[in-house]
């Protein structure tokens, strides 16, 4: 695949491959397996990774493929979230529907890969497709509080209802498969409601498996990408102008170095972190000294997890879903070819 450059000029972006693609395609007509050839040139590289966040470089891939992964992570990678709430008693000032909505947004530690999607017509809560929680809290006066205490957090017991109060109730044989620590909310300190003395909340909640295109609470995390920026200095920039140039870019992108001769010159250090602001075009004195481009075949891909899945697991799931789509359609095309063959 040809390495494309997107040039960032003062008032426009110019894609240098625009004119090339057609002519290069004509030239490569003999190379029928363009897709196969491109696999060999492809590379992925993890820049940093932990369970919550990762930054990974996709080098040599077609951007449509990378965008497909992004779209799948946002809309189609499944997770578990509370979907149905049975409210038995709620005398707090938070309305039933508001509380139920807040419960739905609580991320759970439950691994969705152990569960099935719940059937729409299903009336029972089965062990294979749902997780049960109960929340039973009551707020009362704290007998140990000092007489002149004014802080309501000390004055009352259970003033704040936190996500840690959600208790997992195993369904069917779930105790054999899961441990309680793995079924809790991901964060123990999510504030669900505030109560006053005498208030009470008593409810049961059921979590199911779902996907982000149904509701954002099912999204496993966030994903976004950017193209690798490149900066080329076309002439020497010296002294105060070098400082000015440095200020036009994100921190760490341009270095000002002192040469043995005592001259202070601008030097490109690390373009990766540049925000591509194009501030440099504000200054007529230096705007002719740089050429700003982005590499169209080098994608910096970010995944951020706020669910049970780790960041790299989310990405792997996205690729699996894409493979699943292809397999399903391949079978369908086979059917279509077969049905049209006799005629």
């Amino acid at each position, binding site marked *: 695949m040809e390495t494309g450059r997107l040039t960032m000029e003062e008032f426009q972006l110019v894609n240098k491959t625009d004119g090339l693609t057609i002519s290069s395609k004509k030239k490569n007509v003999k190379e029928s397996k363009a897709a*196969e050839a491109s696999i060999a040139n492809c590379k992925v590289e993890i820049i940093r990774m932990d369970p919550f966040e990762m930054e990974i470089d996709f080098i040599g891939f077609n951007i449509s493929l990378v965008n497909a992964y992004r779209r799948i992570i946002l809309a189609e990678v499944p997770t578990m979230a509370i979907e149905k709430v049975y409210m038995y008693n709620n005398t707090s000032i938070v309305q039933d529907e508001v509380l139920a909505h807040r419960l739905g947004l609580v991320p759970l530690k439950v691994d969705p890969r152990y569960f099935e999607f719940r059937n729409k017509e299903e009336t029972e809560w089965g062990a294979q497709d749902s997780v049960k929680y109960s929340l039973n809290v009551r707020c009362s006066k704290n007998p140990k509080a000092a007489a002149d205490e004014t802080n309501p957090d000390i004055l009352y017991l259970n003033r704040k209802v936190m996500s840690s109060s959600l208790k997992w109730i195993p369904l069917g044989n779930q105790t054999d498969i899961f441990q309680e620590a793995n079924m809790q909310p991901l964060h123990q300190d999510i504030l669900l409601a505030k109560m006053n003395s005498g208030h009470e909340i008593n409810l049961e909640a059921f979590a199911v498996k779902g996907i982000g295109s149904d509701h954002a609470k099912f999204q496993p995390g966030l994903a976004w990408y950017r193209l690798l920026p490149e900066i080329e200095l076309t002439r020497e920039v010296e002294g105060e102008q070098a400082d000015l140039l440095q200020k036009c870019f994100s921190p760490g992108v341009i270095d000002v170095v002192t040469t043995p001769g005592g001259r202070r010159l601008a030097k490109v250090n690390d373009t990766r972190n540049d925000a591509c602001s194009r501030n440099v075009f504000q200054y007529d004195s230096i705007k002719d000294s740089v050429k700003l481009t982005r590499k169209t075949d080098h994608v910096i891909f970010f995944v951020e997890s706020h669910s049970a899945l780790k960041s790299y697991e989310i990405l792997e799931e996205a690729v699996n879903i894409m493979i699943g789509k292809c397999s399903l359609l391949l079978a369908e*095309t086979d059917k279509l070819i077969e049905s049209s063959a006799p005629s």
Partner: protein
Amino acid sequence: MPVGADGFRLPNVNESQFKNKLECLTGPGQNEHCCTFVINGEDHTLGNALKHFIVQNPAVEFCGYTVPHPMERKIHIRIQTWDTPAVEVLHQALKDLKKQNEAVKKLIQDEVKRYQEAHPQQDLEK
């Protein structure tokens, strides 16, 4: 997993439950070499990636995709070829796309393993 056809959205009156995943439009301007395929339950995610793989095939004269209406979960893929049947081009592109995805999966798994070995203390439990 079909997008949108799941969950708790009520099915549209115009949607039949038993529609085929892949269909071929009929009518004028449709023949073996010039064909518009309808893929139900898919969107830009697959459409754009598939289009890019189809146009890489030198047997293809033209390929484009469209989402006819944003509320209907389906895409139209138009393929015009020089002399190969359009359905074979589609089949080849799907095979290439699947192969590429499997390669990506392998690359990611290897890279994750390499990174975890290089940074053993970092993979903390959530």
